Protein backbone atom coordinates (compact mmCIF):
# COMPACT_ATOMS: atom_id res chain seq x y z
CA UNK A 1 0.00 0.00 0.00
CA UNK A 2 1.74 3.17 -1.17
CA UNK A 3 0.10 5.37 1.43
CA UNK A 4 -1.65 4.92 4.66
CA UNK A 5 -2.09 5.91 8.24
CA UNK A 6 1.60 6.61 8.58
CA UNK A 7 1.00 10.01 7.05
CA UNK A 8 -1.33 11.01 9.85
CA UNK A 9 -0.11 14.04 11.74
CA UNK A 10 -1.83 12.89 14.91
CA UNK A 11 -0.23 9.66 15.89
CA UNK A 12 -1.87 6.69 14.25
CA UNK A 13 -5.25 8.34 13.75
CA UNK A 14 -7.00 8.64 10.47
CA UNK A 15 -6.50 11.49 8.07
CA UNK A 16 -9.74 12.47 6.38
CA UNK A 17 -9.86 14.99 3.55
CA UNK A 18 -13.07 16.83 2.84
CA UNK A 19 -13.66 18.53 -0.51
CA UNK A 20 -16.55 20.93 -1.12
CA UNK A 21 -17.69 22.06 -4.56
CA UNK A 22 -16.69 25.58 -3.75
CA UNK A 23 -15.67 27.40 -0.65
CA UNK A 24 -17.33 30.76 -0.94
CA UNK A 25 -20.70 29.42 0.03
CA UNK A 26 -22.57 29.28 3.30
CA UNK A 27 -23.86 25.84 2.42
CA UNK A 28 -20.44 24.26 2.47
CA UNK A 29 -19.32 26.32 5.43
CA UNK A 30 -22.17 24.74 7.34
CA UNK A 31 -21.38 21.33 5.92
CA UNK A 32 -17.79 21.68 7.04
CA UNK A 33 -18.94 22.51 10.54
CA UNK A 34 -20.70 19.17 10.86
CA UNK A 35 -17.82 17.37 9.23
CA UNK A 36 -15.27 18.90 11.54
CA UNK A 37 -17.38 17.98 14.55
CA UNK A 38 -17.45 14.36 13.42
CA UNK A 39 -13.72 14.32 12.82
CA UNK A 40 -13.09 15.72 16.30
CA UNK A 41 -15.38 13.11 17.76
CA UNK A 42 -13.44 10.38 15.99
CA UNK A 43 -10.06 11.88 16.82
CA UNK A 44 -9.18 11.94 13.14
CA UNK A 45 -7.14 14.55 11.39
CA UNK A 46 -9.37 16.68 9.21
CA UNK A 47 -8.19 18.35 6.01
CA UNK A 48 -10.45 20.80 4.24
CA UNK A 49 -9.83 22.59 0.97
CA UNK A 50 -11.85 23.59 -2.05
CA UNK A 51 -11.86 25.81 -5.11
CA UNK A 52 -12.51 29.51 -4.74
CA UNK A 53 -13.55 30.05 -8.35
CA UNK A 54 -15.16 28.11 -11.14
CA UNK A 55 -11.93 26.72 -12.59
CA UNK A 56 -12.86 23.09 -13.26
CA UNK A 57 -9.28 21.91 -12.74
CA UNK A 58 -9.08 23.12 -9.15
CA UNK A 59 -10.88 20.18 -7.54
CA UNK A 60 -8.64 17.69 -9.32
CA UNK A 61 -5.60 19.58 -8.20
CA UNK A 62 -6.69 19.43 -4.59
CA UNK A 63 -7.48 15.72 -4.73
CA UNK A 64 -4.18 14.85 -6.37
CA UNK A 65 -2.45 16.91 -3.77
CA UNK A 66 -4.12 14.87 -1.06
CA UNK A 67 -3.07 11.71 -2.81
CA UNK A 68 0.57 12.70 -2.57
CA UNK A 69 0.00 13.86 0.99
CA UNK A 70 -1.06 10.30 1.76
CA UNK A 71 -4.47 10.80 3.33
CA UNK A 72 -6.55 7.75 4.27
CA UNK A 73 -9.88 8.73 2.91
CA UNK A 74 -11.30 11.48 0.73
CA UNK A 75 -14.85 12.76 0.88
CA UNK A 76 -15.77 14.83 -2.13
CA UNK A 77 -18.64 16.77 -3.60
CA UNK A 78 -18.13 17.09 -7.34
CA UNK A 79 -18.59 20.24 -9.34
CA UNK A 80 -17.70 18.49 -12.58
CA UNK A 81 -18.73 14.89 -12.31
CA UNK A 82 -16.55 13.34 -14.99
CA UNK A 83 -13.58 15.57 -14.42
CA UNK A 84 -13.38 14.90 -10.70
CA UNK A 85 -13.90 11.18 -11.25
CA UNK A 86 -10.57 11.03 -13.06
CA UNK A 87 -8.79 12.27 -9.95
CA UNK A 88 -10.83 10.13 -7.57
CA UNK A 89 -9.98 7.01 -9.55
CA UNK A 90 -6.32 7.90 -9.12
CA UNK A 91 -6.88 8.18 -5.40
CA UNK A 92 -8.46 4.74 -5.33
CA UNK A 93 -5.56 3.37 -7.32
CA UNK A 94 -3.25 4.78 -4.66
CA UNK A 95 -5.13 2.85 -2.01
CA UNK A 96 -7.14 5.77 -0.68
CA UNK A 97 -10.78 5.22 0.14
CA UNK A 98 -13.17 7.54 -1.60
CA UNK A 99 -16.64 8.58 -0.66
CA UNK A 100 -18.78 11.26 -2.25
CA UNK A 101 -21.44 13.42 -0.71
CA UNK A 102 -23.81 16.13 -1.87
CA UNK A 103 -22.96 15.72 -5.58
CA UNK A 104 -21.96 12.30 -6.80
CA UNK A 105 -19.08 11.31 -9.06
CA UNK A 106 -19.09 8.32 -11.40
CA UNK A 107 -19.98 5.15 -9.47
CA UNK A 108 -16.65 3.50 -10.23
CA UNK A 109 -14.74 6.44 -8.78
CA UNK A 110 -16.01 6.04 -5.21
CA UNK A 111 -17.28 3.37 -2.84
CA UNK A 112 -20.29 5.13 -1.39
CA UNK A 113 -22.28 8.26 -2.04
CA UNK A 114 -23.75 9.96 0.98
CA UNK A 115 -27.04 10.97 -0.48
CA UNK A 116 -28.76 13.86 1.18
CA UNK A 117 -31.66 13.07 -1.11
CA UNK A 118 -31.58 11.83 -4.61
CA UNK A 119 -31.59 14.19 -7.52
CA UNK A 120 -35.03 12.90 -8.20
CA UNK A 121 -36.08 13.44 -4.63
CA UNK A 122 -34.89 17.03 -4.62
CA UNK A 123 -36.40 17.83 -7.99
CA UNK A 124 -39.70 16.34 -6.96
CA UNK A 125 -39.74 18.07 -3.62
CA UNK A 126 -39.11 21.42 -5.27
CA UNK A 127 -41.74 20.91 -7.92
CA UNK A 128 -44.36 19.35 -5.63
CA UNK A 129 -44.00 22.26 -3.27
CA UNK A 130 -44.33 24.72 -6.11
CA UNK A 131 -47.25 22.89 -7.65
CA UNK A 132 -49.17 22.86 -4.43
CA UNK A 133 -48.58 26.60 -4.07
CA UNK A 134 -49.87 27.45 -7.53
CA UNK A 135 -52.56 24.83 -7.81
CA UNK A 136 -50.79 22.58 -10.23
CA UNK A 137 -50.94 24.86 -13.22
CA UNK A 138 -49.22 27.85 -14.73
CA UNK A 139 -45.83 29.09 -15.87
CA UNK A 140 -42.69 28.81 -13.79
CA UNK A 141 -39.02 29.60 -14.29
CA UNK A 142 -35.77 28.33 -12.82
CA UNK A 143 -32.72 30.23 -11.57
CA UNK A 144 -29.54 28.16 -11.57
CA UNK A 145 -25.93 28.93 -10.63
CA UNK A 146 -24.40 28.43 -14.02
CA UNK A 147 -25.33 26.30 -16.92
CA UNK A 148 -22.37 23.99 -16.40
CA UNK A 149 -23.03 22.96 -12.79
CA UNK A 150 -23.51 19.19 -12.79
CA UNK A 151 -25.84 18.46 -9.93
CA UNK A 152 -27.95 21.52 -10.54
CA UNK A 153 -28.49 20.24 -14.02
CA UNK A 154 -29.44 16.93 -12.46
CA UNK A 155 -32.09 18.61 -10.32
CA UNK A 156 -33.36 20.61 -13.27
CA UNK A 157 -33.69 17.43 -15.31
CA UNK A 158 -35.59 15.82 -12.45
CA UNK A 159 -37.91 18.81 -12.27
CA UNK A 160 -38.53 18.64 -16.00
CA UNK A 161 -39.26 14.92 -15.91
CA UNK A 162 -41.54 15.17 -12.92
CA UNK A 163 -43.44 18.08 -14.43
CA UNK A 164 -44.00 16.21 -17.68
CA UNK A 165 -45.26 13.19 -15.81
CA UNK A 166 -47.33 14.71 -13.09
CA UNK A 167 -48.16 18.36 -13.84
CA UNK A 168 -49.08 18.65 -17.50
CA UNK A 169 -50.63 22.04 -16.89
CA UNK A 170 -47.43 23.56 -15.62
CA UNK A 171 -44.89 25.01 -18.01
CA UNK A 172 -41.20 25.71 -17.55
CA UNK A 173 -40.70 28.93 -19.49
CA UNK A 174 -37.05 29.77 -18.87
CA UNK A 175 -33.85 28.77 -17.08
CA UNK A 176 -31.47 31.59 -16.17
CA UNK A 177 -27.96 31.35 -14.74
CA UNK A 178 -26.94 33.83 -12.03
CA UNK A 179 -23.21 32.98 -11.69
CA UNK A 180 -23.89 32.31 -8.00
CA UNK A 181 -24.41 36.06 -7.56
CA UNK A 182 -27.41 37.19 -5.59
CA UNK A 183 -27.60 40.52 -7.41
CA UNK A 184 -27.57 38.86 -10.78
CA UNK A 185 -30.34 36.49 -9.68
CA UNK A 186 -32.34 39.51 -8.67
CA UNK A 187 -31.89 41.15 -12.08
CA UNK A 188 -32.69 37.96 -13.93
CA UNK A 189 -35.85 37.48 -11.94
CA UNK A 190 -36.93 41.07 -12.59
CA UNK A 191 -36.54 40.37 -16.30
CA UNK A 192 -38.38 37.08 -16.06
CA UNK A 193 -41.29 38.76 -14.28
CA UNK A 194 -41.82 41.29 -17.04
CA UNK A 195 -40.94 38.96 -19.92
CA UNK A 196 -43.42 36.36 -18.71
CA UNK A 197 -46.36 38.24 -17.23
CA UNK A 198 -48.17 35.00 -16.45
CA UNK A 199 -45.33 33.64 -14.37
CA UNK A 200 -46.65 31.93 -11.28
CA UNK A 201 -43.50 30.74 -9.59
CA UNK A 202 -39.72 30.97 -9.58
CA UNK A 203 -37.64 28.03 -8.43
CA UNK A 204 -34.02 28.69 -7.55
CA UNK A 205 -31.74 25.70 -7.45
CA UNK A 206 -28.74 27.67 -6.20
CA UNK A 207 -28.64 29.17 -2.75
CA UNK A 208 -27.73 32.82 -3.50
CA UNK A 209 -30.51 32.74 -6.08
CA UNK A 210 -33.28 32.29 -3.53
CA UNK A 211 -32.97 35.65 -1.72
CA UNK A 212 -32.15 37.28 -5.08
CA UNK A 213 -35.36 36.03 -6.65
CA UNK A 214 -37.31 36.95 -3.55
CA UNK A 215 -36.04 40.52 -3.56
CA UNK A 216 -37.03 40.90 -7.21
CA UNK A 217 -40.52 39.57 -6.57
CA UNK A 218 -40.86 41.85 -3.58
CA UNK A 219 -39.70 44.92 -5.52
CA UNK A 220 -42.10 44.06 -8.31
CA UNK A 221 -44.91 44.16 -5.81
CA UNK A 222 -45.77 40.57 -6.63
CA UNK A 223 -45.34 39.19 -3.14
CA UNK A 224 -47.65 36.23 -2.89
CA UNK A 225 -48.73 36.43 -6.52
CA UNK A 226 -45.51 34.93 -7.75
CA UNK A 227 -44.29 32.18 -5.48
CA UNK A 228 -40.64 31.71 -4.67
CA UNK A 229 -39.32 28.28 -3.86
CA UNK A 230 -35.74 27.21 -3.72
CA UNK A 231 -32.88 25.25 -2.33
CA UNK A 232 -31.22 27.35 0.28
CA UNK A 233 -30.22 27.93 3.83
CA UNK A 234 -32.83 29.04 6.36
CA UNK A 235 -30.56 31.79 7.70
CA UNK A 236 -30.26 33.47 4.34
CA UNK A 237 -33.99 33.40 3.69
CA UNK A 238 -35.57 33.87 7.06
CA UNK A 239 -36.74 37.44 6.47
CA UNK A 240 -38.31 36.70 3.09
CA UNK A 241 -40.02 33.58 4.33
CA UNK A 242 -41.51 35.45 7.24
CA UNK A 243 -42.67 38.28 5.00
CA UNK A 244 -44.35 35.74 2.77
CA UNK A 245 -42.24 36.54 -0.29
CA UNK A 246 -40.56 33.16 -0.27
CA UNK A 247 -42.95 30.34 0.38
CA UNK A 248 -40.64 27.44 0.92
CA UNK A 249 -36.94 26.80 1.24
CA UNK A 250 -36.01 23.22 0.78
CA UNK A 251 -32.96 21.70 2.29
CA UNK A 252 -31.69 18.84 4.31
CA UNK A 253 -29.88 19.24 7.54
CA UNK A 254 -26.65 20.41 6.07
CA UNK A 255 -24.59 20.04 9.18
CA UNK A 256 -25.76 16.46 9.48
CA UNK A 257 -24.70 15.83 5.92
CA UNK A 258 -21.15 16.81 6.78
CA UNK A 259 -21.27 14.80 9.97
CA UNK A 260 -22.62 11.69 8.31
CA UNK A 261 -20.09 11.94 5.49
CA UNK A 262 -17.16 11.96 7.86
CA UNK A 263 -18.59 9.16 9.93
CA UNK A 264 -19.03 7.07 6.84
CA UNK A 265 -15.61 7.99 5.51
CA UNK A 266 -13.94 6.97 8.75
CA UNK A 267 -15.85 3.73 8.92
CA UNK A 268 -14.94 2.96 5.35
CA UNK A 269 -11.28 3.59 5.99
CA UNK A 270 -11.29 1.44 9.08
CA UNK A 271 -13.03 -1.35 7.21
CA UNK A 272 -16.13 -1.12 9.38
CA UNK A 273 -18.20 -0.17 6.39
CA UNK A 274 -18.08 -2.37 3.36
CA UNK A 275 -19.85 -2.47 0.02
CA UNK A 276 -22.97 -4.54 0.35
CA UNK A 277 -23.85 -3.32 3.83
CA UNK A 278 -27.43 -2.19 4.24
CA UNK A 279 -27.08 -0.28 7.47
CA UNK A 280 -24.54 1.87 9.09
CA UNK A 281 -24.23 3.36 12.56
CA UNK A 282 -23.31 7.02 12.31
CA UNK A 283 -22.43 8.35 15.73
CA UNK A 284 -25.04 10.66 17.18
CA UNK A 285 -27.25 10.31 14.11
CA UNK A 286 -27.91 6.72 14.93
CA UNK A 287 -28.38 4.05 12.31
CA UNK A 288 -28.63 5.17 8.71
CA UNK A 289 -30.02 3.22 5.83
CA UNK A 290 -27.93 2.20 2.83
CA UNK A 291 -29.57 1.61 -0.50
CA UNK A 292 -27.15 0.00 -2.94
CA UNK A 293 -24.11 2.22 -2.65
CA UNK A 294 -26.04 5.24 -1.44
CA UNK A 295 -26.02 6.14 2.23
CA UNK A 296 -29.25 8.01 2.81
CA UNK A 297 -29.43 11.08 5.00
CA UNK A 298 -33.18 11.24 4.85
CA UNK A 299 -35.64 13.26 2.90
CA UNK A 300 -35.21 16.92 2.26
CA UNK A 301 -36.95 19.25 4.56
CA UNK A 302 -39.14 22.23 3.68
CA UNK A 303 -38.59 25.33 5.76
CA UNK A 304 -41.67 27.49 5.90
CA UNK A 305 -42.95 30.48 7.80
CA UNK A 306 -44.08 28.17 10.57
CA UNK A 307 -40.88 26.30 11.28
CA UNK A 308 -38.02 28.39 10.00
CA UNK A 309 -37.22 29.94 13.37
CA UNK A 310 -36.28 26.55 14.74
CA UNK A 311 -33.19 26.32 12.57
CA UNK A 312 -30.04 28.31 13.03
CA UNK A 313 -27.91 27.45 10.00
Amino acid at each position, binding site marked *: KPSGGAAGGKGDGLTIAFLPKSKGNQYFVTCEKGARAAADELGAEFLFDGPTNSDPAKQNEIVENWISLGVDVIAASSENKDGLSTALRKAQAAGIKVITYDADAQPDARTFFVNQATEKGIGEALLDNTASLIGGEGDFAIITANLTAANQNGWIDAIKAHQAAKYPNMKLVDIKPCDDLKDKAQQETTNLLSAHPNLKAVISVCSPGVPGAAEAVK*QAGKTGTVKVVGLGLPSENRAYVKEGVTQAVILWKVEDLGYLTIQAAAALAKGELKPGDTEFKAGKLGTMKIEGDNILLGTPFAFTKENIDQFDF
Partner: protein
Amino acid sequence: MNGKHSREITVAGALALLLLALGILAPNFYDLQPLLSRTTSQMPALVAAIGITLVIITRQIDISIGAQFSMCGVVAGVVAAAGFPLPVAVLAAVGTGVVMGAFNGVLIAWLGLPSIVVTLATMVTWNELLRLWQQGRLMTLPDGFQWFGLSQATGQGIVIAVAVALLVSAAWTMKHLAAGRHVYAVGTDAEAARLAGINPKWTTFGVFVLMGALAGIASVLNLVQSPQVQPNAGDGLELKVIAAAVVGGVAITGGRGNLWGVLLGLLLLANVNPALTHFHQPPYWERAIQGLVILLAVVADGMKRTKKATA
Protein backbone atom coordinates in the same frame (compact mmCIF):
# COMPACT_ATOMS: atom_id res chain seq x y z
CA MET B 1 -16.19 68.17 -36.92
CA ASN B 2 -18.88 65.85 -38.30
CA GLY B 3 -17.14 62.80 -36.91
CA LYS B 4 -16.93 64.14 -33.41
CA HIS B 5 -20.12 62.61 -32.08
CA SER B 6 -20.39 59.76 -34.55
CA ARG B 7 -19.73 57.13 -31.89
CA GLU B 8 -22.45 58.45 -29.61
CA ILE B 9 -24.82 58.55 -32.56
CA THR B 10 -24.01 54.96 -33.60
CA VAL B 11 -24.42 53.59 -30.11
CA ALA B 12 -27.56 55.62 -29.52
CA GLY B 13 -28.87 54.28 -32.82
CA ALA B 14 -28.17 50.67 -31.86
CA LEU B 15 -29.73 51.23 -28.46
CA ALA B 16 -32.79 52.89 -29.99
CA LEU B 17 -33.17 49.99 -32.38
CA LEU B 18 -32.99 47.49 -29.54
CA LEU B 19 -35.47 49.46 -27.46
CA LEU B 20 -37.78 49.82 -30.43
CA ALA B 21 -37.65 46.09 -31.14
CA LEU B 22 -38.44 45.46 -27.49
CA GLY B 23 -41.33 47.92 -27.69
CA ILE B 24 -42.84 46.04 -30.63
CA LEU B 25 -42.05 42.46 -29.69
CA ALA B 26 -42.12 42.64 -25.90
CA PRO B 27 -44.02 45.70 -24.72
CA ASN B 28 -43.95 44.34 -21.18
CA PHE B 29 -40.35 45.46 -21.09
CA TYR B 30 -41.69 48.96 -20.48
CA ASP B 31 -43.90 48.14 -17.51
CA LEU B 32 -43.02 50.81 -15.02
CA GLN B 33 -41.93 48.79 -12.03
CA PRO B 34 -39.57 46.31 -13.69
CA LEU B 35 -38.14 49.14 -15.72
CA LEU B 36 -37.47 51.06 -12.54
CA SER B 37 -35.89 48.06 -10.80
CA ARG B 38 -33.84 47.26 -13.85
CA THR B 39 -32.60 50.84 -14.10
CA THR B 40 -31.85 51.06 -10.40
CA SER B 41 -29.85 47.87 -10.53
CA GLN B 42 -27.58 49.37 -13.20
CA MET B 43 -26.82 52.54 -11.23
CA PRO B 44 -23.87 51.10 -9.27
CA ALA B 45 -22.28 50.09 -12.56
CA LEU B 46 -22.92 53.57 -13.93
CA VAL B 47 -21.14 55.17 -11.00
CA ALA B 48 -18.20 52.80 -11.39
CA ALA B 49 -18.20 53.55 -15.11
CA ILE B 50 -17.72 57.25 -14.42
CA GLY B 51 -14.57 56.37 -12.53
CA ILE B 52 -13.18 53.98 -15.11
CA THR B 53 -13.84 56.54 -17.83
CA LEU B 54 -11.65 59.08 -16.08
CA VAL B 55 -9.02 56.41 -15.50
CA ILE B 56 -8.97 55.42 -19.15
CA ILE B 57 -8.90 59.04 -20.30
CA THR B 58 -5.72 59.50 -18.25
CA ARG B 59 -4.33 56.55 -20.24
CA GLN B 60 -4.48 54.11 -17.36
CA ILE B 61 -6.63 51.14 -16.57
CA ASP B 62 -8.05 49.81 -13.33
CA ILE B 63 -9.10 46.19 -13.23
CA SER B 64 -9.32 46.16 -9.46
CA ILE B 65 -12.61 48.03 -9.30
CA GLY B 66 -14.72 44.90 -8.91
CA ALA B 67 -12.58 43.92 -5.95
CA GLN B 68 -12.79 47.44 -4.53
CA PHE B 69 -16.55 47.37 -4.92
CA SER B 70 -16.81 44.06 -3.07
CA MET B 71 -14.48 45.21 -0.33
CA CYS B 72 -16.33 48.49 0.21
CA GLY B 73 -19.63 46.64 0.43
CA VAL B 74 -18.31 44.20 2.99
CA VAL B 75 -16.72 46.92 5.09
CA ALA B 76 -19.99 48.84 5.09
CA GLY B 77 -21.78 45.63 6.03
CA VAL B 78 -19.41 44.90 8.90
CA VAL B 79 -19.67 48.44 10.20
CA ALA B 80 -23.43 48.31 9.97
CA ALA B 81 -23.57 44.93 11.66
CA ALA B 82 -21.54 46.43 14.49
CA GLY B 83 -24.47 48.72 15.09
CA PHE B 84 -23.31 51.95 13.49
CA PRO B 85 -25.90 54.04 11.66
CA LEU B 86 -26.17 54.23 7.89
CA PRO B 87 -24.13 57.43 7.36
CA VAL B 88 -21.18 55.89 9.19
CA ALA B 89 -21.39 52.78 7.05
CA VAL B 90 -21.48 54.94 3.93
CA LEU B 91 -18.43 56.86 5.08
CA ALA B 92 -16.65 53.61 5.84
CA ALA B 93 -17.38 52.30 2.36
CA VAL B 94 -16.22 55.45 0.63
CA GLY B 95 -13.21 55.73 2.93
CA THR B 96 -12.20 52.16 2.15
CA GLY B 97 -12.52 52.93 -1.54
CA VAL B 98 -10.37 56.02 -1.18
CA VAL B 99 -7.67 54.07 0.63
CA MET B 100 -7.60 51.33 -2.00
CA GLY B 101 -7.64 53.89 -4.79
CA ALA B 102 -4.82 55.80 -3.15
CA PHE B 103 -2.81 52.61 -2.86
CA ASN B 104 -3.13 52.03 -6.60
CA GLY B 105 -2.50 55.72 -7.20
CA VAL B 106 0.75 55.84 -5.25
CA LEU B 107 2.19 52.85 -7.06
CA ILE B 108 1.11 54.07 -10.47
CA ALA B 109 1.65 57.82 -10.20
CA TRP B 110 4.77 57.98 -8.06
CA LEU B 111 6.56 54.74 -8.72
CA GLY B 112 5.51 54.86 -12.36
CA LEU B 113 4.40 51.23 -12.39
CA PRO B 114 2.11 50.08 -15.20
CA SER B 115 -1.48 50.36 -14.07
CA ILE B 116 -2.62 47.12 -15.67
CA VAL B 117 -0.18 45.10 -13.63
CA VAL B 118 -0.63 47.05 -10.41
CA THR B 119 -4.39 46.75 -10.52
CA LEU B 120 -4.17 43.11 -11.53
CA ALA B 121 -2.13 42.54 -8.39
CA THR B 122 -4.40 44.58 -6.15
CA MET B 123 -7.43 42.88 -7.66
CA VAL B 124 -6.30 39.40 -6.66
CA THR B 125 -5.01 40.64 -3.33
CA TRP B 126 -8.29 42.29 -2.28
CA ASN B 127 -10.44 39.50 -3.65
CA GLU B 128 -8.54 36.76 -1.90
CA LEU B 129 -8.33 38.77 1.29
CA LEU B 130 -12.10 39.06 1.22
CA ARG B 131 -12.49 35.33 0.70
CA LEU B 132 -10.13 34.61 3.52
CA TRP B 133 -11.98 37.01 5.77
CA GLN B 134 -15.59 36.34 4.86
CA GLN B 135 -15.61 32.75 3.56
CA GLY B 136 -18.36 33.73 1.18
CA ARG B 137 -21.00 34.35 3.79
CA LEU B 138 -24.04 36.28 2.69
CA MET B 139 -24.20 39.17 5.13
CA THR B 140 -27.50 40.35 6.45
CA LEU B 141 -27.78 44.10 6.90
CA PRO B 142 -29.69 45.72 9.73
CA ASP B 143 -33.26 46.81 9.20
CA GLY B 144 -33.59 50.31 7.90
CA PHE B 145 -30.68 49.92 5.52
CA GLN B 146 -32.63 48.97 2.49
CA TRP B 147 -33.73 52.02 0.53
CA PHE B 148 -32.07 54.19 3.21
CA GLY B 149 -34.93 53.19 5.46
CA LEU B 150 -37.43 54.85 3.15
CA SER B 151 -40.06 53.44 0.85
CA GLN B 152 -38.98 51.41 -2.15
CA ALA B 153 -40.04 54.06 -4.68
CA THR B 154 -38.25 56.83 -2.81
CA GLY B 155 -35.20 54.67 -2.36
CA GLN B 156 -35.01 53.81 -6.02
CA GLY B 157 -35.49 57.48 -6.80
CA ILE B 158 -32.58 58.41 -4.55
CA VAL B 159 -30.31 55.76 -6.03
CA ILE B 160 -31.03 56.91 -9.56
CA ALA B 161 -30.80 60.57 -8.59
CA VAL B 162 -27.41 60.10 -6.91
CA ALA B 163 -25.98 58.26 -9.90
CA VAL B 164 -27.34 60.73 -12.40
CA ALA B 165 -26.15 63.67 -10.32
CA LEU B 166 -22.68 62.16 -10.20
CA LEU B 167 -22.74 61.59 -13.93
CA VAL B 168 -23.89 65.12 -14.72
CA SER B 169 -21.44 66.77 -12.40
CA ALA B 170 -18.58 64.64 -13.67
CA ALA B 171 -19.48 65.46 -17.26
CA TRP B 172 -19.73 69.14 -16.38
CA THR B 173 -16.40 69.07 -14.59
CA MET B 174 -14.68 67.42 -17.51
CA LYS B 175 -15.86 70.15 -19.82
CA HIS B 176 -15.93 73.27 -17.72
CA LEU B 177 -13.32 72.97 -15.01
CA ALA B 178 -9.61 73.24 -15.50
CA ALA B 179 -9.28 69.93 -13.65
CA GLY B 180 -11.20 68.15 -16.39
CA ARG B 181 -8.91 69.62 -18.98
CA HIS B 182 -5.94 68.45 -16.96
CA VAL B 183 -7.21 64.88 -17.04
CA TYR B 184 -7.48 64.96 -20.82
CA ALA B 185 -4.07 66.63 -21.13
CA VAL B 186 -2.32 64.07 -18.94
CA GLY B 187 -3.92 61.25 -20.89
CA THR B 188 -2.83 62.71 -24.19
CA ASP B 189 0.77 63.38 -23.27
CA ALA B 190 1.90 63.31 -19.67
CA GLU B 191 5.26 64.93 -20.38
CA ALA B 192 3.71 67.76 -22.37
CA ALA B 193 1.24 68.24 -19.56
CA ARG B 194 4.05 68.45 -17.05
CA LEU B 195 5.81 71.05 -19.15
CA ALA B 196 2.55 72.99 -19.32
CA GLY B 197 2.58 73.21 -15.54
CA ILE B 198 0.11 70.44 -14.84
CA ASN B 199 1.24 67.88 -12.30
CA PRO B 200 0.61 64.53 -13.99
CA LYS B 201 1.41 62.62 -10.83
CA TRP B 202 -1.17 64.38 -8.74
CA THR B 203 -3.67 64.21 -11.58
CA THR B 204 -3.19 60.46 -11.99
CA PHE B 205 -3.22 59.92 -8.25
CA GLY B 206 -6.38 62.01 -7.95
CA VAL B 207 -8.12 60.02 -10.64
CA PHE B 208 -7.35 56.72 -8.92
CA VAL B 209 -8.50 58.07 -5.57
CA LEU B 210 -11.67 59.27 -7.21
CA MET B 211 -12.09 55.85 -8.79
CA GLY B 212 -11.85 54.30 -5.34
CA ALA B 213 -14.35 56.76 -3.89
CA LEU B 214 -16.77 56.11 -6.72
CA ALA B 215 -16.38 52.35 -6.22
CA GLY B 216 -17.32 53.00 -2.58
CA ILE B 217 -20.36 55.05 -3.53
CA ALA B 218 -21.35 52.44 -6.11
CA SER B 219 -21.15 49.72 -3.49
CA VAL B 220 -23.42 51.75 -1.22
CA LEU B 221 -25.92 52.24 -4.02
CA ASN B 222 -25.85 48.47 -4.46
CA LEU B 223 -26.04 47.78 -0.76
CA VAL B 224 -29.30 49.63 -0.25
CA GLN B 225 -31.10 47.65 -2.93
CA SER B 226 -31.52 44.53 -0.84
CA PRO B 227 -31.26 43.50 2.78
CA GLN B 228 -28.22 41.34 2.20
CA VAL B 229 -24.80 41.77 0.72
CA GLN B 230 -22.62 39.13 -0.88
CA PRO B 231 -18.86 39.44 -0.34
CA ASN B 232 -18.14 38.82 -4.01
CA ALA B 233 -20.78 41.24 -5.28
CA GLY B 234 -18.26 42.99 -7.54
CA ASP B 235 -17.19 39.91 -9.50
CA GLY B 236 -16.93 40.84 -13.15
CA LEU B 237 -17.81 44.51 -12.60
CA GLU B 238 -14.49 45.68 -14.04
CA LEU B 239 -15.09 43.93 -17.34
CA LYS B 240 -18.60 45.24 -17.56
CA VAL B 241 -17.66 48.90 -17.08
CA ILE B 242 -14.50 48.76 -19.18
CA ALA B 243 -16.58 47.29 -21.97
CA ALA B 244 -19.17 50.04 -21.50
CA ALA B 245 -16.48 52.71 -21.72
CA VAL B 246 -14.96 51.20 -24.84
CA VAL B 247 -18.29 50.76 -26.55
CA GLY B 248 -19.11 54.31 -25.53
CA GLY B 249 -16.12 55.59 -27.48
CA VAL B 250 -13.48 56.15 -24.81
CA ALA B 251 -10.09 55.66 -26.46
CA ILE B 252 -8.01 53.11 -24.59
CA THR B 253 -4.96 55.10 -25.70
CA GLY B 254 -6.07 57.97 -23.49
CA GLY B 255 -7.08 61.57 -23.99
CA ARG B 256 -10.40 60.97 -25.69
CA GLY B 257 -13.92 60.04 -24.71
CA ASN B 258 -16.88 61.47 -22.93
CA LEU B 259 -19.27 60.32 -20.27
CA TRP B 260 -22.45 60.53 -22.32
CA GLY B 261 -21.05 57.98 -24.71
CA VAL B 262 -20.21 55.76 -21.76
CA LEU B 263 -23.77 56.06 -20.47
CA LEU B 264 -25.05 54.91 -23.85
CA GLY B 265 -22.51 52.08 -23.99
CA LEU B 266 -23.54 50.88 -20.56
CA LEU B 267 -27.23 51.00 -21.42
CA LEU B 268 -26.63 49.07 -24.62
CA LEU B 269 -24.62 46.31 -22.97
CA ALA B 270 -26.89 46.15 -19.93
CA ASN B 271 -29.92 45.63 -22.14
CA VAL B 272 -28.56 42.70 -24.11
CA ASN B 273 -29.47 40.24 -21.41
CA PRO B 274 -32.97 41.58 -20.61
CA ALA B 275 -33.65 41.68 -24.32
CA LEU B 276 -32.70 38.01 -24.71
CA THR B 277 -35.06 37.18 -21.87
CA HIS B 278 -37.86 39.26 -23.32
CA PHE B 279 -37.40 37.77 -26.76
CA HIS B 280 -37.57 34.37 -25.08
CA GLN B 281 -34.11 33.44 -26.29
CA PRO B 282 -31.80 31.02 -24.48
CA PRO B 283 -29.25 32.77 -22.26
CA TYR B 284 -26.09 31.06 -23.44
CA TRP B 285 -25.49 33.48 -26.28
CA GLU B 286 -25.21 36.44 -23.92
CA ARG B 287 -21.47 36.42 -23.46
CA ALA B 288 -20.76 35.86 -27.15
CA ILE B 289 -23.02 38.78 -28.07
CA GLN B 290 -21.32 41.08 -25.58
CA GLY B 291 -17.96 40.11 -27.01
CA LEU B 292 -19.23 40.87 -30.49
CA VAL B 293 -20.54 44.29 -29.45
CA ILE B 294 -17.12 45.19 -28.06
CA LEU B 295 -15.35 43.96 -31.18
CA LEU B 296 -17.76 45.82 -33.45
CA ALA B 297 -17.12 48.99 -31.51
CA VAL B 298 -13.34 48.77 -31.89
CA VAL B 299 -13.58 47.68 -35.49
CA ALA B 300 -15.79 50.69 -36.19
CA ASP B 301 -13.04 52.84 -34.67
CA GLY B 302 -10.46 51.17 -36.87
CA MET B 303 -12.51 51.65 -40.03
CA LYS B 304 -13.07 55.30 -39.24
CA ARG B 305 -9.37 55.82 -38.72
CA THR B 306 -8.40 54.04 -41.93
CA LYS B 307 -10.92 56.09 -43.86
CA LYS B 308 -9.57 59.28 -42.38
CA ALA B 309 -6.02 58.28 -43.22
CA THR B 310 -6.75 57.51 -46.85
CA ALA B 311 -9.04 60.51 -47.39
